[in-house]
């Protein structure tokens, strides 16, 4: 992940795949209010994805628009982190994923808002406000579940244990990118430590750090997600919708 195209594409793919996963909760959330909140966050991610993919297409200069990038690439061409493509699991897994994603996206978009590229800066300025809400929402749920009942504590800890290893990939150094993700690690760690502490949860000790998403080497899950997302668009080549 180096040039502005790769960087923008990776961020756009993160947001798109996160949106697709979050939208799967629609009609299935534990409370009606939460159905609305998750749809809201999915819409935010989708909105950011559209801006980023559109801009990525312009940077590439090959005539691909947001839909060409979203619907006509195969999984080996997607550049999202593995974290976002993991299945939703139970509500605790979804909240662990969202907490880590938001704790990464907030400092990322904030840094982006001050970068030299005006388009990326504008996208960052818009998206960081949304990320702040995502972080707030997921933090609150992680605390409720971590410090709720015995069962919710057990599930929330299991979710953190399961998802945590996938956070390493987010901070792989990219010194030439508009924002070097490695510089975001400190803020991420501080945010997450505070939330987990209050939630009476612990960070797992593990050296396992699955990665590959930025190079297009994904988990087995992504191909299924794309098969569903792309099926209709691909069934009607060239059609307008």
């Amino acid at each position, binding site marked *: 992940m180096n040039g502005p195209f790769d960087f923008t594409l990776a961020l756009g793919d993160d947001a*798109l795949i996160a949106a*697709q996963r979050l*939208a*799967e909760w*629609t*009609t*299935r*959330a*534990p*409370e*009606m*209010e*939460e*159905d*609305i909140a998750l*749809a*809201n966050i*999915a*819409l935010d991610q*989708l*909105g950011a*994805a*559209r801006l980023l*993919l559109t801009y990525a297409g312009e940077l590439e200069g090959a005539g691909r628009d*947001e*839909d060409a990038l*979203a*619907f006509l690439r195969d999984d080996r061409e997607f550049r999202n982190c593995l974290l976002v493509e993991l299945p939703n699991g*139970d*509500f605790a897994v979804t909240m662990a994923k969202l907490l880590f994603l938001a704790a990464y996206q907030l400092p990322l978009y904030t840094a982006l808002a001050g970068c030299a590229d005006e388009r990326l800066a504008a996208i960052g300025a818009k998206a960081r406000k949304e990320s702040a809400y995502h972080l707030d929402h997921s933090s609150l749920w992680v*605390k*409720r*579940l971590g*410090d*709720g*009942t015995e*069962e*919710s504590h057990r*599930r929330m800890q299991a979710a953190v244990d399961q998802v945590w290893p996938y956070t390493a990939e987010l901070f792989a150094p990219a010194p030439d990118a508009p924002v070097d993700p490695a510089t975001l690690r400190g803020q991420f760690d501080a945010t997450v430590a505070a939330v987990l502490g209050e939630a009476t949860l612990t960070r797992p000790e593990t050296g396992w750090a699955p990665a590959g998403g930025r190079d297009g080497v994904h988990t087995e899950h992504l191909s299924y997600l794309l098969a*569903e*997302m792309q*099926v*209709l*668009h691909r069934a*009607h080549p*060239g*059609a*307008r*919708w």
Partner: protein
Amino acid sequence: MYGNDFSAEDAPGGGLLGEVEAAEAALRAAAERGRRGGPAPDEDLAAYFAAVVDADQKIEPRDWMPEAYRKTLIRQIAQHAHSEIIGMQPEGNWISRAPSLKRKAILLAKVQDEAGHGLYLYAAAETLGVSREELVDLLLSGRQKYSSIFNYPTLTWADVGAIGWLVDGAAIVNQVPLCRCSYGPYARAMIRVCKEESFHQRQGYEILHTLAHGTPAQKAMAQDAVDRWWYPSLAMFGPPDTDSTHSAQSMAWKIKRFSNDELRQRFVDMCVQQAEVLGLTIPDPDLRWNDERQSYDFTQPDYAELMRVISGDGPCNRQRMAHRRAAHSEGAWVREAAAAYAAKRAQQQKEKVAA
């Protein structure tokens, strides 16, 4: 989306939205006129209630009301709320496969609006002295119904368009008169809901319009969807007036303002021109203008089928209920955790205050 009542015009949403705005203005005017003072100490409460309704003023939660009026409203508002919540499923079915990112965003926002309508309506029902938990329980146990239309499947993307155009269209025709309902909280809720629904209807119409002017396969998909959704949409207005049980009393209470058949006719008259613009065919060989009635003659939906679906034997009744029950039961541990966490916080707060 729910219903049994109405008014409409040709432009998708346009005439209907005008009706909603007129109702909103009337509501404001009624509030400004002010109601006569409360009932005199020796006045008959029933007479006072009747006087408020007759004067087109609003009954509010604090007012005395006949028990049957309260029950009818609870049933109607709750069924409407349930319909919004169950109605999220058929359209939610296409969020993951929406054919463009723009359509995905619009559909996701629409389904989210429906959840919002559901919550808003449950809150309106709660003003009548029933809790949301009780109402959800009535839905999950099958003792209260939701609109039968949602027991049909969404088989193709065009169904999302057809639901917007026909189902939301029928819902608005049903609901616009409810903006003038005698019960204040319901009337106000319906004004907000109708505004959003008319927006949804336009979106559905636009989906169909794009498909109908797209590739031959897209046009065929659009026609197939209209073929499947037309008669179930007509059935949304309920049984014919000759068989409708609740109508007369509801009319007198100004909970209902037009009969099922009047509303159905308005809906048909509204759709014919729209279908022409779409370039799609309404699947009724006997549809034709009747100069004498200044309305279209049309084939009635199969009411025996409507009754079968209402009684539980539609294509998706079991699926919709199982899905709702699963979401509710799988979320139980989350709701329990939230309650436990809130109780702990409250306890800590109390200890802090005591210290």
